[in-house]
Structure formats: structure tokens, C-alpha cells
């Protein structure tokens, strides 16, 4: 297989698999309803997934051993969190976050 086709088929195959996991729940839920206990379970998804996406960036993984600490991201998270508590504004939070990490990288 040519290198171009290898990349192309990979993109199409991955795209299809990823698309299915996003679209099938919509199609199924159009026909069926979820039991109350599943809905309750899913009500925790937003905060758990957002926390997990944040916290996973605070460490560096070494499989089989305790994770290391990503000091840059950990330090930058503090001003970011404070700015979001004070401003309650997403744009300000993102800008403070970017500047914080840039400053930390200049110093460290």
C-alpha cells in the first residue's frame, strides 16, 4: 500500500469509529429512553470529565510507578482558578491561564 493510501485509509477508518461513538447515542436515545438510575449516573459526567481533563494535566505518567508532578501546569492552575473565581468569565480565565504558564516558563 502506498504511503498516501495508508494515511488516507487510517484517517477514514479512525474517522468512522470516532463518528460512531458520537452519533450512535443520539440515534439510540431518539428511539429509547434511559432508566432513571442511568440518568442519575450520567448527571455526574460533566463535573467528573472536566475535573479529569484538568487533573490529568497536573501529572506526568510513569506506568507502574507513582506519577510525577507537572509543576508548570500545577503552578499555572492557581492564578487561573483564582481569576475564574473573581471574574466568573471564561475569556479572562483562558487569557490569565496562557499568560501564567508563559511567565512560569520564562522564570523556570
Amino acid at each position, binding site marked *: 500500500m502506498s504511503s*498516501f493510501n*495508508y494515511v*488516507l*485509509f*487510517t*484517517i*477514514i*477508518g*479512525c*474517522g468512522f*469509529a*470516532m*463518528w460512531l*461513538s*458520537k*452519533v*450512535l447515542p*443520539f440515534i*439510540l*436515545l*431518539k428511539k429509547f429512553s*434511559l432508566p432513571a438510575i442511568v440518568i442519575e*449516573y*450520567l448527571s*455526574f*459526567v*460533566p*463535573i467528573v*470529565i*472536566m*475535573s*479529569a*481533563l*484538568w*487533573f*490529568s*494535566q497536573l*501529572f506526568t*505518567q510513569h*506506568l*507502574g*510507578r*507513582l506519577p510525577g508532578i507537572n509543576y508548570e*501546569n500545577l503552578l*499555572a*492552575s492557581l492564578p*487561573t*482558578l483564582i481569576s*475564574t*473565581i473573581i471574574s466568573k*468569565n*471564561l*475569556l479572562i*480565565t*483562558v487569557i*490569565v*491561564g*496562557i499568560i*501564567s504558564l508563559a511567565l512560569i*516558563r520564562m522564570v523556570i
Partner: protein
Amino acid sequence: MNAELNRKTAIKEVLPTAFGYIGIGIAFGIVSKAAGLSALQAGLMSLIAYGGSAQFIIVSMLLVHSPIISIITAAFLVNSRMILMSLVTAKYFKNDSMLHNILIGSLLTDESFALAMNKLNYTNNKLNFAWFDTANWFAYFVWFFSSVLGALVGNFIENPTNLGIDFALVAMFIGLLYLQMISDKSLKLSLQLLVVVATFILVYLGLIFIPSNLLIIIITLLGCAVGMVLKHVFF
């Protein structure tokens, strides 16, 4: 954020997330270029296999000529958290047409999901197609153009992840998490705090033995279960 659910409001509200998309999109383009993909291939991947972190994994596996089937498996696993986000989102579109449902699902991302979950707190727990569709397409185009841009200029500019832009997405999740916690009235704040702390512990322990491409989905499944238990035992 406000209660309005039209296309104009969506553009205004999705804008802060664009910073993250642009920085990471350019970084993706640069990485693809460095891995030997053309700008066309990088752009095609952003259009067809649209999925942030999964795309970085695809590129890294293409680089070492992994078999197509193992790349597809890895991409699916990394992306499997979307199944949960789709399940949560779909119930707000039950009365919309099938086409609208498929469109919203096709372009759903971590960011548009998190944004929508926040939006719910301002709209009396409602979402509509116009708002979500606009937020989705905006993100899709910004991601596509920045990844092509990254691949085109990859040789000439410094990777933006060296400048702090890579933190944009993390900062966005911090902001969205906090805003979600203070405005979601369906779960008590103390319960939410406990669940966040539990998630922190799960992430720390999970990093020891869960491969990174499965980490987020496994932590989310466990974290929600912990949330259920906490809610029924203590609240």
C-alpha cells in the same frame, strides 16, 4: 453567558474556547508536518477524524507505521469518552429531527459539551439546535484552519505550546468546571466538591496503572459511580 439560544449568542459564547482550538490546532499541524504528513493530510484528518487528542495519537502511530486496525482501536478508545458526552447531550434533542441529532453528534467535542453543560444553567435546562450547531461549526472550522496553518508554517515558526498556549484548554476546563459547580442547582455544591476531590484521587491512582489512552474514560466511569454512592449514602 445568558438565557438566549440563538446563533449570535453562540458565536459570542464559543469565542473564548477558540483560543484553545487555535493553539492546539496549530500545534497539531506542526506535529503532523514533523511526522511527514502534508498540509492536505493534516487538514483531511481534522475534517474526517475530528477529535483533538485522538488525532495526536493517530499521527504518532502513523509515524511508526502501526497497522491500521491498531490505530483505529487506539483512536476509538481515546475517543470513547464521547459516548458518555453524547448520551448526556442527546436527551436535550429528543424532539429534534434525526438529521439535527446526527449533526449535533457528529461535531460534538469536549469543549462544546462543557460549554453546553454550562449554558443549561442559564436557560432553564434547555438547549436548541441553532445554538449548539453554531458553536459546533465554529469550533470545527477554527480547528480545521489552524491545523492546516500549523502544517503549512510548521517549518518556520516555533511550536506555540512553548509559549503557554497549550494551557488554554486546561484553563478553559478549570473555568468551565468552576462555573458549572456554582451554577448547577441539581447537585449540591458540597456533593460536587466531594466528587471533584474523589476524581483527583482517582486520576492520581489511575495514572499508576491505566494506560493514558484509557485514563479519561475509566476515571469518568468510576468517578460517576463514586458520585452516585456519595449522593445516596450522605445526601
